[in-house]
């Protein structure tokens, strides 16, 4: 009997059953005195709306799911290595082609054309606005945080502060705050962009210069504090920021230079193009930076700060630079959000927000620009979909459970992210060549 339970397939089945049990309880309806086991059994009504195909109790559905999952696991254990080897052989050719620069640029251009056409393809009011509020803004934030976390290796838990500063600068410049706007009269929201960029860069330097001597966890805690300070300022400096009610009078942006005049209105698509333009701009800036001398300095500092210092790299200078550069795209995002929404509350700039952005970066692949973009798009589209058409019993905060579970799963099976950065990818292939082991061990066993 004991031996039976110690066999690997049986142990895996038990683990899967346990996980499915937890998932069933989490997603199920709460129990009550009359129905103490509602989480397992559910109601016939709910079961029907889950699949629509057959009416049954929840536990039957989940047991089936568990058995299917177990079947897939066992199949993968049996045939997986062969399939993996064949797939990697088959992909070797295309991968080599994919590494070539013209191919990559061409691919990026195709994606860009697709992104330009996208609002007309979806052609649906909800998705057109979701492309701005859920996707484009978050991509902009994620690629900025990726510079700080992925390139320079600095854990920033207060990134939302730069986003808030960008948004509040917009409100200030357009005269929507109790504080008088610069030069005495309100400007168009479009002109908030240069102000916002200058302000977030200054904020990045002010925060970075004294704190970036700290390393690792200490830095994370200080940045977390910085994020909180900005929110508390926004909340409590009533006469300057409008306090907890914020402002509801931010005008839509107007681009007005000489004879050219364009006004953004209520429709989401023009904001999408504004955001897309900023994303493309920052993608170009960040990928050029990554390949430059500055990018190499960031890599060196991330890998070994003492060695970098003894080779003549000033760690503080380059870390502050990473902070300021990364903050710039958050400032942009703040301007676009504030002027598209017309309103602004301090309560939207929370620690949770910073962590959400960090999750996008980690899932996509720290240090990999394409990975971060893909990761952010996937997560945000799924989130928008779930909020728009929630399945039975789904509530918005539930998302954190699923994202948390996804993070844990990723850390086990793909710790370097969806699309690992070039360096990580190269490390995996080299490791596969030199060892006959699980390729991810190369990333887990980082003890050098």
């Amino acid at each position, binding site marked *: 009997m004991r031996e039976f339970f110690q066999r690997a397939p049986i142990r895996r089945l038990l683990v899967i059953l346990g996980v499915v049990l937890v998932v069933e309880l989490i997603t199920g309806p709460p129990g009550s005195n009359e129905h103490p086991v509602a989480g397992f059994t559910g109601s016939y009504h709910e079961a029907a709306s889950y699949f629509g195909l057959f009416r049954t109790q929840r536990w039957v559905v989940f047991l089936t799911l568990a058995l299917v999952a177990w079947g897939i696991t066992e199949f993968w254990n049996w045939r997986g290595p062969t399939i993996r080897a064949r797939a990697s052989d088959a992909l070797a050719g295309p991968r080599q082609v994919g590494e070539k620069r013209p191919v990559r640029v061409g691919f990026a251009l195709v994606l860009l054309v697709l992104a330009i056409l996208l609002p007309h393809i979806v052609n649906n009011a909800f998705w057109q606005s979701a492309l701005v509020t859920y996707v484009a803004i978050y991509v902009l934030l994620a690629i900025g945080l990726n510079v700080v976390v992925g390139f320079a290796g600095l854990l920033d838990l207060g990134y939302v502060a730069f986003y808030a500063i960008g948004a509040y600068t917009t409100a200030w410049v357009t005269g929507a705050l109790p504080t008088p706007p610069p030069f005495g009269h309100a400007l168009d929201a479009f002109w908030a962009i240069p102000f916002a960029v200058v302000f977030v860069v200054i904020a990045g330097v002010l925060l970075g210069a004294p704190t970036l001597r700290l390393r690792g966890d200490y830095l994370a805690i200080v940045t977390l504090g910085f994020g909180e300070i900005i929110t508390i300022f926004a909340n409590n400096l009533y006469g300057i920021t409008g306090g907890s009610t914020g402002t509801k009078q931010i005008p839509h942006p107007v681009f007005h230079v000489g004879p050219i005049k364009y006004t953004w209105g209520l429709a989401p698509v023009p904001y999408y193009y504004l955001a897309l333009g900023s994303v493309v701009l920052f993608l170009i800036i960040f990928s050029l930076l990554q390949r430059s001398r500055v990018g190499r300095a960031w*890599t060196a500092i991330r890998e070994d700060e003492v*060695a970098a210092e003894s080779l*003549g790299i000033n760690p503080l200078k380059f870390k502050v630079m990473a902070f300021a550069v990364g903050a710039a795209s958050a400032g942009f995002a703040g301007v676009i959000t504030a002027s598209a929404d017309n309103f602004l509350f301090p309560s939207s700039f929370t620690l949770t927000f910073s962590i959400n952005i960090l999750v996008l970066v980690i899932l996509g692949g720290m240090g990999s620009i394409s990975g971060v973009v893909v990761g952010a798009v996937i997560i945000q589209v799924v989130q928008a979909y779930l909020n728009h058409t929630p399945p039975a019993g789904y509530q918005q905060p539930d998302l954190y459970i699923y994202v948390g579970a996804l993070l844990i799963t990723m850390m086990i099976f793909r710790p370097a992210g969806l699309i690992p950065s070039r360096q*990580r990818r190269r490390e995996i292939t080299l490791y596969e060549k030199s060892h006959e082991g699980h390729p991810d061990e190369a990333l887990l066993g980082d003890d050098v």
Partner: protein
Amino acid sequence: MLEVTDAVVRYGAITALHGITFEVNEGEIVTLLGANGAGKSTTLRMVSGLQPPVSGSITFRGRDISRTRAHDFAKLGVSHVPEGRRIFPQMSVEENLEMGAFRRRGSTSEDLEGIYETFPILKERRKQLGSNLSGGEQQMLAIGRALMSRPTLLLLDEPSMGLAPMIVDTIFRIIGEIRAAGTTVLLVEQNAAHALRLADRGYVLENGRIVLSGPSSELLVDPRVRAVYLGEDVEAGS
């Protein structure tokens, strides 16, 4: 070339160096010997600006450098190979070497060729990642990387640490070649016998003080050195 006078280094309340004085002349190999915790690595960290002294002076080619920050040393022509090699694990060998020339503008291909001539194994492995090298190869890479900045003074912190005796011989032979090519070397070692055979002069550190100094040939036959650092019985040695 390098003169250190009465230098004191403290880590918080703990004094690691109680005022040490020594000098390194152009073209020499000078070695600092001592047991664990004697202050050898601290001395090197002090000379390269990683741990500035609280008092005392350090001059390099007549210029006071006791307040110069670590990242400006590369420009002065001082290159530090830190303890534990500290190569960049996820960069390739060649990228590691390129990082060594970070503070220098212009082409690095000539320097790379030079390094590959000195360390042929690095040329073979140039596309491999730093973390995939053996200990000896990593040490060669660390030295090569330091040489990329064309230093006039090379600071080496325990290059023999954790290496097989045969590799240690190779490393020490190469240190000799580096000196022959015109670079002054300050070498910190636990392997006293090896270091003294290579060096021109040596200093012996004990608890943050220099207790003994002189030409290597004298130190090699000094009964105290023989007893403590060469692991010989005093009577048998004398």
